[in-house]
């Protein structure tokens, strides 16, 4: 035991991948929800 971590690239890649995937998915859900809200507002406006 040297007290030094050997290797570990797989953990680094996992951390960055999780972060990137989470940001992309959240960004996509935001755009989708914004569009849904906009079309709902348009429908409501037409009804009125």
């Amino acid at each position: 035991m040297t007290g030094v971590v050997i290797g570990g690239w797989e953990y680094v890649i996992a951390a960055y991948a999780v972060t990137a995937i989470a940001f992309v998915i959240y960004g996509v859900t935001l755009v989708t929800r914004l569009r849904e809200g906009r079309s709902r507002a348009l429908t409501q406006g037409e009804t009125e």
Partner: protein
Amino acid sequence: MKETNLSAAPGKGNLASKAGAILLGVGAYFGIIGALHFYVPAVQPWMHLNLGGGGQALVGATCALAGTLLLLLADDLRSRPGAATALLAVGAVALIIGSAIGLFAAPAEQFMGETQRIMYVHVPTAWSALLAITFGFGCAIAFLFNGDFRYDSRLEASIEVGVLFAFLLCVQGAIWAKPTWGVWWDWDPRLTTTAVLLFAFLGILALRNFVDDPVKRGIWSSVATIIAFVDVPIIYFSVRWWNSLHQVQSTPDTVASPFHLPLRISAFGILFLMIGFIMLRARIADQRLQQELTAPPEMMGEEAGELA
């Protein structure tokens, strides 16, 4: 409750958004320029006003925080989704550059080896998570004091983004913990208080989904946010108050200079992403509130009938 108009008045808040953008730019400049010298020897001390490492970090962080606050409060940006999209694009580019330097140019740490590279996303995620939750806390107080639903939208947005970042923080931390501590998770004070924060604010988001009345929803979630926010200073000081596996906070003096640049570029990237996400999410909350606060057409018809 105060009469609320959710649509931004034209021109209102222009000064705040411009000042916010300038401050954020100044913060990024001072945050990054001083850290460049390790990689770009041509950087001269006058370029960062001869400020030392601590001074650059202080000026950079102060300007960035003030700029963030102004941008999140600027009313004119609420009607301009292009501003949020631009921030997201700049944030993504900065995060990619910071990550590339952190992964391929920065040296490995002496003891943690390659796994220390997780720091370049983990630490900025932690900063942004606590910042988003703190902004939500401020919005909760503002909503309770003046009943302005624009703060309620910002509260909902900042809590959701804060929860996303806190979740990511726990996952990144677990991935870093396995090779360094030997376990994915430990009921250590820092980790436990962060998990408490995540579940407390998840509960507040659930509460907001279950309550249909916007006034009750705003008041209840604001009160809950203020109570749950008590956990934030506990998280920050947990590593000093108790024996913790998690290390204590670093300062520019305790972090080797090659690590500064990727850390700071990634930090600004994730900060920009956080601001962009909150802006877009607040628009979604605005849309919902606008529909709820507008009288339904059926009701208007009935009322019209009664009047006739």
